């Protein structure tokens, strides 16, 4: 039975989850975070929950184990029943054996010094005897693919492994429902793949799952998709139905799956689950596109790469950033950068990609002077960076940290932006002028007097950009600028970055997101174990199947689809234009 049935006609005892008319308003908020939400989940079903930031996804997840309203002040009404038991009288800890909850921040949910202890932790809390714990630990680790890791320190695991460990520790209690709240947001592509492969296995075992996720491609295998908008259910149905409503998804801040969107633009009524299905659908509708002689895209399309956007006179004869044979290790650790050579020209747009631990952030810190090379040297505009203080470097190259909250401290947005120029002793009228310019550039000109801590994550990220932009650097390095942002905020952030690049600022982004590389970057640098193993154009990069596979990096699905036809498109629009041009 699906949620289309009137909720009052459904018997709660038959379902994994039964939510009836739940409304919750956070203390001090002017509107409810959830508004009369009702849904039913059958046992063994997997539901994907999507929506923009602030749509109510996490609030809904937290209602399912009583974190809302137990932890969060506010007004709660409605009824929730898990496996037939109403939750109204229960505490969060009482629900641990029934509802397993996995959070986005994996660092905050690991408490022990080795993997086996971590899995045992929840069992210890509910008073399980030692023999039973022993019986359950290995199967739980086996289920998440961490057998053999029992004695490892959780902090020494990769992001994907940490998240799988968090899942193992809730699995050990054998709950009837597992709720995963954006479990892969902070993971690299390999970590994401690991976690979604695990989710697929758990689903096959008949566990009821609720997965909150921003990327629609990852939820195509779900039984149902629920889209939330401003606390209400805007769509609820099988993926092929929900994902076909491109306009609605966009309006709700959800990125429609690239394949489905492409087919829609081609006038094909289908919601493919894979590249193969999309290929077949296009071949049926546009038979003439098949048989196109395979073009060597790397050669033939190079001339179609967008020209450098910086003005020609801005392109200096020497590299703006020169990294010459740089090696680096942290104290007592292995080599993180291994004899790296790299040049970045003025006005370039470079994406640095690679698995977690491949040295991306360390390389960026070498450029801005937060770390000193053990061997080799870094130059900025021909000057040896070792001779420059970080403050001097800041006026040439600005670095935006992954987490904007690592720098925000001022009482107002304007003060936050003015902090940098004040440190350089600029006169007040110059500071004002620069603040206006920077706030205008990031679209926060109307938030001057707002408290930075009350802004959304996307706004705080843009504020972080403004607060370094105000120093008028010639290059901007952004470390994972879209992490934790919904699709609408991601687009806004990247539009800002593209505009800055068009204004002549060189951009280096560190990212794990394939579509972002495809749509915005013009050059890709791939790092592996501290070494540069690819440096070239974006199209050329996505042609390197073996390289992508061995680096656990995936081309966007639309690119994969286009390659089935013998071409290479980086965006949906480009692919659709190519098909129509040959039809």
């Amino acid at each position, binding site marked *: 039975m699906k949620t289309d049935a009137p909720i009052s006609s459904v018997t709660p005892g038959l379902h994994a989850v039964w939510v009836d008319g739940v409304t919750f308003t956070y203390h001090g908020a002017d509107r409810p975070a959830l508004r009369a939400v009702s849904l039913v989940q059958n046992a063994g079903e997997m539901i994907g929950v999507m929506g923009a930031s602030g749509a109510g996804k996490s609030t809904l997840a937290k209602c399912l184990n009583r974190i809302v309203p137990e932890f969060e002040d506010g007004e709660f009404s409605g009824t929730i029943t898990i496996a037939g038991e109403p939750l109204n009288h229960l505490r969060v800890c009482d629900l*641990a054996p029934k509802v397993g909850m996995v959070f986005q921040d994996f660092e905050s949910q690991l408490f022990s010094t080795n993997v086996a202890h971590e899995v045992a932790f929840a069992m210890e809390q509910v008073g399980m005897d030692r023999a039973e714990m022993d019986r359950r630990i290995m199967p739980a680790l086996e289920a998440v693919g961490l057998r053999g890791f029992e004695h490892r320190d959780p902090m020494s695991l990769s992001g994907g492994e940490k998240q799988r460990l968090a899942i193992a520790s809730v699995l050990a209690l054998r709950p009837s429902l597992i709720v995963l709240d954006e479990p892969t947001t902070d993971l690299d592509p390999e970590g994401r793949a690991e976690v979604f492969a695990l989710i697929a296995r758990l689903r096959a075992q008949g566990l009821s799952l609720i997965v909150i996720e921003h990327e629609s491609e990852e939820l195509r295998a779900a039984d149902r998709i629920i889209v939330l908008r401003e606390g209400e259910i805007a769509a609820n149905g099988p993926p092929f139905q929900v994902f076909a409503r491109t306009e609605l998804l966009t309006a709700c801040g959800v990125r429609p799956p690239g394949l489905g969107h492409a087919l829609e633009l081609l006038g094909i009524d289908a919601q493919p689950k894979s590249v193969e299905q999309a290929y077949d659908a296009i071949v049926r509708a546009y038979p003439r596109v098949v048989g196109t002689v395979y073009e060597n895209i790397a050669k033939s399309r190079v001339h179609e790469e967008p020209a450098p956007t910086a003005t020609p006179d801005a392109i200096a004869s020497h590299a703006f950033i020169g990294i010459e044979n740089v090696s680096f290790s942290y104290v007592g650790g292995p080599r993180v950068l291994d004899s790296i050579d790299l040049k970045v020209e003025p006005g370039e747009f470079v994406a640095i990609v690679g698995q977690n631990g491949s040295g991306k952030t360390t390389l960026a810190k070498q450029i801005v002077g937060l770390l000193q090379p053990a061997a080799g040297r870094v130059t900025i505009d021909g000057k040896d960076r070792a001779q420059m203080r970080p403050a001097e470097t800041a006026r040439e190259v600005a670095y935006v*940290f992954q987490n904007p909250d690592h720098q925000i401290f001022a009482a107002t947005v304007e003060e936050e932006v003015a902090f940098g120029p004040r440190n350089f002793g600029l006169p007040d009228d110059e500071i004002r002028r620069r603040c206006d310019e920077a706030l205008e550039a990031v679209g926060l000109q109307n938030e001057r007097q707002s408290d930075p801590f009350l802004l959304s994550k996307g706004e705080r990220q843009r504020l972080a950009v403004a607060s370094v932009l105000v120093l008028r650097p010639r290059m901007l390095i952004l470390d994972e600028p879209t992490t934790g942002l919904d699709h609408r905020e991601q687009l806004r952030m990247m539009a800002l970055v593209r505009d800055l690049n068009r204004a002549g600022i060189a951009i280096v982004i560190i990212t794990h997101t394939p579509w972002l590389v495809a749509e915005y970057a013009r050059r890709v640098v791939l790092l592996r174990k501290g070494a540069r193993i690819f440096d070239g154009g974006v199209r050329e990069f996505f042609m390197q199947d073996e390289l992508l596979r061995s680096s656990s990096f995936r081309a966007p699905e639309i690119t994969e689809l286009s390659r089935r036809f013998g071409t290479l498109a980086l965006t949906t629009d480009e692919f659709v234009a190519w098909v129509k041009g040959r039809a």
Partner: protein
Amino acid sequence: MPIYLYIDRGTFVHRLHPTVKVFALFVMFWSVYWVDNPIALLPVGLVMLWIAQLTDSWPNFYRLRWLFVILVFTTTLAWMVFYRRGAVLVNVPVFHISRLSLVFGLGRGIKLAELLAASVLFLSTTKIEEFTYGLQRMRVPYRVSFAISLSFRLVPLFIDSAVTIVDAQRLRGYDFNQGGPLERVRRYVPVVIPVFMGALRKANNMAMALEARGFGFSHEPTTFVEYPVTVTDIIAFAFLIGLGTMNFMLYWTGLGGIGPLK
């Protein structure tokens, strides 16, 4: 880069019963507390050096080497300003450099360094779970003992976050080293606020995750690992009693003070 101090070496010190380890930490603090004389502090110091060698805890001491140096050096200097006893050996403005003030200052510096060393040894050889268990066995309520042991695990995370925040502000041209001592403290406001906000957020996330995993459940928590008491534990316990008694006797007899060196 490892941010925690525990080093899994499997030595007999690592395998000691958690209660004995918590007791050992207490005895080290107790022993250092009663004596002031640098020579009288030597036995405890030698015991710690021996344990550090046995447990191969040197990487942690190396990581914190500057903290040890600063602790001994600044404490000795500070006491030469405030401890104005004994015949002056050299005339230096503000400082009172006498044999007595030197010995007293050095003794205080070594005391602090030994307290730090005892903590480093404890954290190098004791898992969080053992710490919790040890405290529980000493009748500390579970919630309190878990909170204490968890805080040890959180401190490195906060330090890590503070380092990132310092980097972020330096890249906006901020100079933490401007002005006198008070001004320098004040200049850390742009670090303290983000660290504090981050700590609150992390603490909140952690509290939610803990309860979601059953922390506070109606049953008394059980323990996954069994810690049997062995002969080694009894010998170690007796040795610690001896060490604590010896240091108290040093105080009692006056040998632990700075008097004999007058």
